[in-house]
């Protein structure tokens, strides 16, 4: 039992040996820092989103609270705390109270496996020395790694679903039905593009994935990022599926105001609503951090002067910021998808494409090991792709035609 536990903990060099008070203190410190960072980053993100989207719409955005309105989120938070906490008469009370926590706790947990810094140069593997102990700049480095993120984001679906169901009101229910369908279907595409990364990197741990990307890439010029190694397609799929998973525009059908009032959180007010809000923005930050970790080499990057761990943080936050900007940009630009368009995009395009690409990467991997003729491999894969795409197209068309004619309708034809 002790041996197996050590094997689990050994992912972090600090936890491999004797665990004494210093180690516990370091772990506690990391937890507190990660917690505070997430809260502060959420505050920043809400402000940044409102400010940037205002700018993109030729407005000013929040400008009253604090310099450049940066304390706007704080003001909103204080307001939420002092509002009346409503519990609808027809609500399923226990579930209603539980749901916001189900949304917010996974959001916190998910961030714990993100490496936010560390020295990845010269095969260091992101190890830094803290109070005389060698450790990683992430709260936890479990062996299951990115699977933990997928698991937690699945748990977060329950938060949304139960919130809508327990409200005892029809719009939240509709919103949560949409949410669960959307999140479940996009999780498949997301999982398959994560699988591509795992296949390329050969490890599930986030630290391992970042270490793998730390080396020099092709020609010594390009970085060794999974973005390039997996051929860009899994990245695009992951970004689209991640945006859908976050219920952010253009995939915000869950809280489509024009159709569903507020969506799954219509009946929530006060601090419980604030928890949903907090979870949403924390998830945005975590998802951006996950993009960075999986595809853009996380904190790995050159360290010209000074300590390597600091440069790791600098690179990480720079890359993170790019994706935070991207999410706001999406929101400012893209109109919301219709529900059938959303499902079509997920099931008929993203999932087959990510599955096909995953197989392609696997074939290339095997071909390299077996030293097959690369031309034959490429030609065969291309032919397979074309045939698959053609068949899928035929199937989609046939299904569409049948639906229009009403042949396979379960009840009366509409």
């Amino acid at each position, binding site marked *: 039992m002790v041996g197996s536990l050590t094997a689990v903990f050994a992912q972090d060099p600090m936890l491999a040996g004797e665990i004494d008070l210093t180690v516990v203190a370091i772990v506690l410190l990391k937890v507190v820092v990660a917690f505070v960072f997430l809260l502060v980053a959420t505050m920043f993100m809400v402000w940044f989103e409102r400010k940037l989207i205002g*700018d*993109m*719409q030729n*407005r*000013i955005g929040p400008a009253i609270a604090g310099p450049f309105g940066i304390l706007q989120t704080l003001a909103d938070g204080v307001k939420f705390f002092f509002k009346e906490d409503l519990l609808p008469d027809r609500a399923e009370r226990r579930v209603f109270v539980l749901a916001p926590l189900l949304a917010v706790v996974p959001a916190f947990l998910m961030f714990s496996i993100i490496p936010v810094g560390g020295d990845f140069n010269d095969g260091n593997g992101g190890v830094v020395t803290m109070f005389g102990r060698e450790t990683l700049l992430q709260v936890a480095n479990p062996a299951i790694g990115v699977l933990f993120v997928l698991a937690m984001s699945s748990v977060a679906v329950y938060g949304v679903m139960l919130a809508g169901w327990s409200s005892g009101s029809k719009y939240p229910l509709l919103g949560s039905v949409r949410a669960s369908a959307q999140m479940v279907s996009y999780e498949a595409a997301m999982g398959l593009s994560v699988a591509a990364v795992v296949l390329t990197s050969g490890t599930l741990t986030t630290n391992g994935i970042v270490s793998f990307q730390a080396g020099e890439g092709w020609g010594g010029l390009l970085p060794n990022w999974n973005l390039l190694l997996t051929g860009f397609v899994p990245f695009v799929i992951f970004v689209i599926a991640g945006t859908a998973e976050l219920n952010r525009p253009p995939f915000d059908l869950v809280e489509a105001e024009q159709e569903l009032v507020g969506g799954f959180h219509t009946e929530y007010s006060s601090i419980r609503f604030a928890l949903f809000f907090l979870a949403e923005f924390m998830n945005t930050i975590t998802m951006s951090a996950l993009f960075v970790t999986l595809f853009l080499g996380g904190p790995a990057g050159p360290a010209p002067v000074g300590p390597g761990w600091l440069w790791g943080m600098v690179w990480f936050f720079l890359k993170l910021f790019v994706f935070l900007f991207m999410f706001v940009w999406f929101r400012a630009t893209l109109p919301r998808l219709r529900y059938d368009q959303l499902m079509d995009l997920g099931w008929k395009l993203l999932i087959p494409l990510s599955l096909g690409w995953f197989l392609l990467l696997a074939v290339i991997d095997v071909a390299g090991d077996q030293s097959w003729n690369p031309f034959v491999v490429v030609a065969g894969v291309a032919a397979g792709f074309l045939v698959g795409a053609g068949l899928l197209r035929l199937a989609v068309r046939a299904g569409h035609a049948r639906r229009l004619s009403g042949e396979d309708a379960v009840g009366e034809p509409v």
Partner: protein
Amino acid sequence: MGYLDGFKVTFRQIGPSQRVTAPYPAEKAPKPERLHGRHVLNRYEDGMEKCIGCELCAGVCPARCIYVRGADNPPDDPVSPGERYGFVYEINYLRCIHCDLCVEACPTEAITETKMFEFSFTNRLDAIYTKDELLVDDDGRPRKLPWEDWREGEDEHTSAWMRATAPSGSAAFEGRVAWSGELGYGVRPPERGQAHEDLPATPGTTGTQDHGSGGH
């Protein structure tokens, strides 16, 4: 890249030069010179009131927000140059729609409109402006009441609309002086009218047609 063109559109908007919003309470957007705000009761250059208590403004008011009672001028201390003067003058700003018909109806240019609409009340009675509040002060400026948000220079254009079209609100008299002097300002110059090139182009009409004098 048809699908991605939208991203260029939103990205181009970034930057302060394209902003159209004014940070309102700190800074006001410029107001058009002929904006209809709350009223003032003007005075002649010698300080006499222009209002003669004829009640034409109250008669024409579609919102019935003006209440006027005229009275004979005291012979030893006349308030207005004529026979009678406005003894009571009240406007209810919860009813006023700022249509400016009272300004058109007034035979002596006594009532005109300022550019002020930024005021609020905590009591319905406060919304009724009495003559004390409406009458211009000894400099001919509107009274800056404590619940109104006046800024520098906002009290100057109190009769622009009337001066652009008078008399009788007709554009045919544009540019002709046909009004009496005002306390603090003298005889105000006519406001520059709208030239034809300022008008929005309407398909099917030429710029030379005169729509202004119709029905006169």
